[in-house]
């Protein structure tokens, strides 16, 4: 039986009067704004899913005179392209979200860190920033934005690496703690939020926390923008209510022959056909920053895995040994198994190595290599060996 259709939502790209929302919101007390965001249940839309209201609350609680709000627009996860579209279509809403955050946490300066691959958006964003600054002046809200560009380093999407990059250094992640809310950009309390997250805060301020809270599930409130690609007749960007199963997703977007869906990009999880029905797309199942790649039965999962490992080997910053050496060894290892130089039991050793990387790597990059590795190797073992 075909299950009911997916619920489309239109919050992110909905045309709204940002000025009106800000007029109303910036008059409120910071605690009230934060409470609304907490009540909405919004969790970060960049992939990690930290509760946005908590992030703002912790940053607001710090006593420093200088604090920052940073918009993470370093969208680099393979298969994700929603932030580009959001910045292209509704930049005013993104900046509006930063203004709301600035009020909530007490920041006077905001940084937008845009990946270098999206440099073509700069003229448009600069123009929009001028309009925004004029608006801030009119509203007598002391807040300015700065635009910074990345230069082709995936790791700079990791929050502390992104701070290092803005500070003019190599984009190498820092040890945590301290967390950004106490010591972030230039050592100051910082709230760093994804592009999409910031837009949702604007919509929560417009429609109220309840409106957002009613959408989705207990663990995954609200809706989410998905970037759909691969073997699908409907590649593109879709905002959907959270809580659907992979099965429902495939019914909508598959080509009738979907054998696996990679949820969350190279650092996410591979869901094979037999698990479609029982896997929920969200924080209670497989989380995603938006990347949804469909593979049909003509695709070799060895090629998919090899491509991801090649990606990580290149993008590992090289700072910590588990990640630097681990990525290389996983890549060399699956190649050796494929060539028949190593037997299939060697794959179990490699899965153990991926597990070691998960607990011993310094940042999210090395910690998540094992997600794709384990889920592809365990579900498609024969494709890796033969």
């Amino acid at each position, binding site marked *: 039986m075909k299950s009911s259709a997916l619920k489309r939502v239109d919050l992110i790209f909905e045309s709204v009067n940002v000025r009106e929302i800000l007029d109303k919101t910036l008059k409120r007390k910071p605690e009230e704004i934060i409470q609304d965001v907490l009540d909405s249940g919004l969790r970060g839309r960049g992939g990690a899913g930290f509760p946005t209201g908590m992030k703002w609350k912790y940053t607001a609680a710090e006593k420093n005179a200088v604090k920052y709000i940073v918009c993470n627009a370093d*969208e*680099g*996860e*393979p*298969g*994700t*392209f929603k932030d*580009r579209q959001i910045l292209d279509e509704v930049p005013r809403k993104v900046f509006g979200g930063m203004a709301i955050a600035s009020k909530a946490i007490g920041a006077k300066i905001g940084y937008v860190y845009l*990946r*270098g*691959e*999206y*440099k*073509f958006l700069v003229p448009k964003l600069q123009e929009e920033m001028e309009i925004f600054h004029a608006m801030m002046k009119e509203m007598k809200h002391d807040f300015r934005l700065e635009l*910074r*560009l*990345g*230069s*082709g*380093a*995936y790791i700079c999407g990791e929050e502390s690496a992104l701070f290092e*990059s*803005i*500070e*003019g*250094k*190599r*984009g*190498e992640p820092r040890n945590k703690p301290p967390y950004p809310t106490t010591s972030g950009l*230039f050592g100051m309390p910082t709230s760093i939020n994804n592009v999409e997250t910031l837009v949702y805060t604007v919509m929560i301020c417009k429609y109220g926390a309840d409106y957002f809270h009613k959408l989705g599930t207990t663990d995954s409130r609200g809706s989410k923008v998905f*970037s*759909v*690609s*691969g*073997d699908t007749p409907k*590649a*593109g*960007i879709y905002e959907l209510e959270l809580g659907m199963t992979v099965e429902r997703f495939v019914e909508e977007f598959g080509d009738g022959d979907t054998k696996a869906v990679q949820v969350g990009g190279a650092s996410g999880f591979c869901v094979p056909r037999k698990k479609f029905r029982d896997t929920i797309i969200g924080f209670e199942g497989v989380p995603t920053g938006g990347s949804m*790649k469909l593979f049909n039965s003509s*695709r070799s999962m060895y*090629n*998919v895995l090899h*491509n*991801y490992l*090649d*990606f990580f080997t*290149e*993008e590992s*910053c090289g700072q910590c040994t588990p990640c630097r050496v681990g990525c290389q060894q996983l890549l060399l290892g699956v190649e050796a198994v494929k060539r028949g130089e190593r037997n299939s039991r060697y794959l179990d050793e490699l899965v153990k190595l991926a597990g070691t990387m998960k607990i011993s790597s310094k940042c999210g990059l090395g910690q998540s290599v094992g997600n794709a590795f384990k889920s592809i190797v365990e579900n498609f073992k024969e494709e890796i060996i033969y």
Partner: protein
Amino acid sequence: MLEQVNLVKELADKHGRRRDSLIPILQGLMEEKNYLTDEAMVLVAKELDISAADVYGTASFYTFMDTDVRGKYVIRICKTISCSMKGKIDVLHTIEETLKIKVGETTSDKKFSLLETNCIGWCHKAPAMLINDTPYTELTPQKVTEILQEYMKL
């Protein structure tokens, strides 16, 4: 050389001489020339009063800040799986045949460099590439030939 000295000064006047001015300055240099010369990096180090090793160490971390000689137009074709699934290899071969260079090489007239890069965020319109900052999507061998011919005229 004098031109470069002036450019570095200009960029430092614009972006400041603090450590966090470094990357915008290097990006400004990249806009003038598609790679960073040793001389330029030494000039930046002097201007910001930091060591040249620091400048090189920072620049060499970032894939898009090339320290090798690059052509006027740098082609970066996406090598991530979504693009591979949609015929990227044929597009790549067409570029290689048209420009008579392989991945990693620069044409002898220093006009084009061909590189591969990781996901550039156009998976729904794969295969995709960047020529300098401009994205080109839904490429086919025919389409990429036409694009390159336009650039050859420039």
